[in-house]
């Protein structure tokens, strides 16, 4: 990087020049590399390790209009003790008004509470509303904030507006970690994914997250690959490490393990911890537990023997 990143956001012009100066993504190459890494065979003891690692990286999520206090408490209990001796998950992810319930339930367990904020999932509201949404979640005890970027502004090319929003929300987060959701399914091109990743990281994101889970396609492997390349290059350029969280559409153990392979081969083993890589999911956890059971007992497990979620 020739430009010092501190000056990049000095004006709309410099920001645009920087983002458009990023090398383009070879779409076919990215797709093929992701597909190739997806064919790695992870078996027996390595698979057992990968499953436990994946469980410890899960952000167990419920983001439905029908969420109740009871459902959130049940999910938190499962997050702390998934069952069968499996490790606890990394965090639970809920809407801001349910953060207090979740925080109360997981207190002292080491499970973090993440909250979506900033007019999730569309992000269509004023900056004041987004900031107060964030403040609400932080005040209720959220350790992590998942914000959405203004995709409309991003696609119109108003990068500085997106940048300033992230900075404002980051300020409202205080001690809480900030995850920036790029909603890659709406960004149209891989080049945009790379630009949005850099934009979020320069603005101070602690994590970059693929999707809200409300838009298809959500977290595809090539998109995660591009974001992992971005955090790797960003650390090389600035020395600051940023985490990655693919979310949405990861339902099977196989998907999860493909993601872990991608992390190891792209960003490196430094990212292979719950501190720097998360999997946003809800139904994935049961599949991981079922595969864990299969390895332990030698018989295929059935969903009847695992909690509903």
């Amino acid at each position: 990087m020739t430009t010092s990143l501190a000056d990049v956001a000095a004006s709309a012009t410099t920001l645009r020049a920087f983002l458009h100066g990023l090398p383009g993504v070879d779409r076919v190459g990215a797709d093929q590399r992701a597909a190739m890494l997806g064919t790695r065979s992870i078996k027996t003891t390595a698979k057992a390790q990968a499953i436990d690692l994946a469980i410890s990286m899960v952000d167990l999520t419920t983001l439905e209009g029908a969420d109740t206090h009871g459902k959130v408490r049940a999910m938190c209990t499962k997050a702390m003790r998934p069952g069968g001796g499996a490790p606890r998950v990394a965090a639970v992810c809920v809407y801001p008004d349910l953060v207090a319930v979740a925080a109360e339930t997981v207190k002292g367990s080491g499970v973090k509470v993440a909250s979506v904020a900033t007019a999730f999932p569309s992000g269509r509201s004023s900056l004041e509303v987004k900031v107060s949404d964030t403040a609400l979640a932080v005040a209720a005890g959220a350790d992590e904030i998942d914000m959405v970027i203004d995709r409309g502004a991003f696609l119109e090319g108003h990068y500085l507006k997106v940048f300033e929003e992230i900075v404002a929300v980051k300020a409202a987060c205080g001690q809480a970690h900030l995850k920036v959701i790029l909603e890659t399914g709406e960004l149209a091109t891989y080049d945009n994914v790379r630009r949005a990743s850099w934009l979020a990281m320069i603005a101070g994101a602690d994590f970059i997250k693929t999707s809200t889970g409300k838009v298809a396609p959500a977290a595809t492997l090539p998109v995660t690959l591009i974001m992992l390349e971005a955090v790797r290059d960003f650390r090389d350029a600035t020395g600051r490490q940023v985490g990655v969280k693919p979310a949405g559409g990861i339902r099977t153990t196989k998907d999860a393990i493909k993601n872990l392979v991608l992390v190891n081969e792209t960003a490196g083993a430094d990212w292979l911890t719950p501190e720097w890589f998360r999997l946003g999911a809800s139904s994935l956890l049961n599949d991981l537990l079922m595969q864990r059971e299969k390895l332990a007992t030698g018989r295929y497990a059935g969903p009847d023997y695992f909690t509903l979620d």
Partner: protein
Amino acid sequence: MSRLSVRKTYKLFIGGAFPRSESGRSYVVTSAKGEFVANAARASRKDARDAVVAARKAFPGWSGATPYNRGQILYRVAEMLEGRRAQFAEELGGPKKAAAERVDAAVDRLVWYAGWSDKIASVRGAANPVAGPYFNLSTPEPTGVVAVVAPADPLLGLISVIAPVIVTGNTCVVVASENAPLPAITLAEVLATSDLPGGVVNLLTGHQSELAPWLAAHMDVNGLDLGGVEDADLALKCEQEAAENLKRVFRPASEDWSLDPGLSRMTRFLETKTVWHPVGI
């Protein structure tokens, strides 16, 4: 000029699709005289697992369909089978007349079971007399996903084990006869074109000893028909594995498929649900 022969690739039938085995394996099927007939897919335990997933997915829709609708679909299967009588007779081999009779018997068997779809509840259900102001009704309910190890009789036997399982609303994973798997896959083509929802019947070809224990041990399988297992040790092993989640296990003595089948195969994979309804409210 002679035409290039277009040979059929015999594949598996899982979730309404015809995939090759995940393992990429196949095995040689020979005729009674030992001549090469075709290569059949040799399913692995992972194919069995995928088939169970497909069967489970199909269960809510199939068990929730009206019995009348299930009966109509089974009639439809019989109609489709009727149109392919010549093909099946050829695939069964042996004397032509005998083979044709076997196919006819298979079609008739299907029609017979299809008729039971909306009658079994009347026979197996009951309005129980109780000492109180209630209606007390017992109705038969399908048990869930049933794993069936099909008998050696490649068509009549196969139909006679599949039809009673699905007519009551169960879905099934069938391990076809190891030595004569080809009619099973041709039957799959019939099933795929007769409005039967994908996943209600899943057909695997391959080695019984490789597939049956995995299905018997699978925690998401609710019933097990060991009719086709001739090796007593294997059958015993399957029974023991099946005990883990209390599957309904059916291990019949060898059967003569030409006889009247009776209700035992249908009722074996039914559960009874009893409900109390208050009267006059």
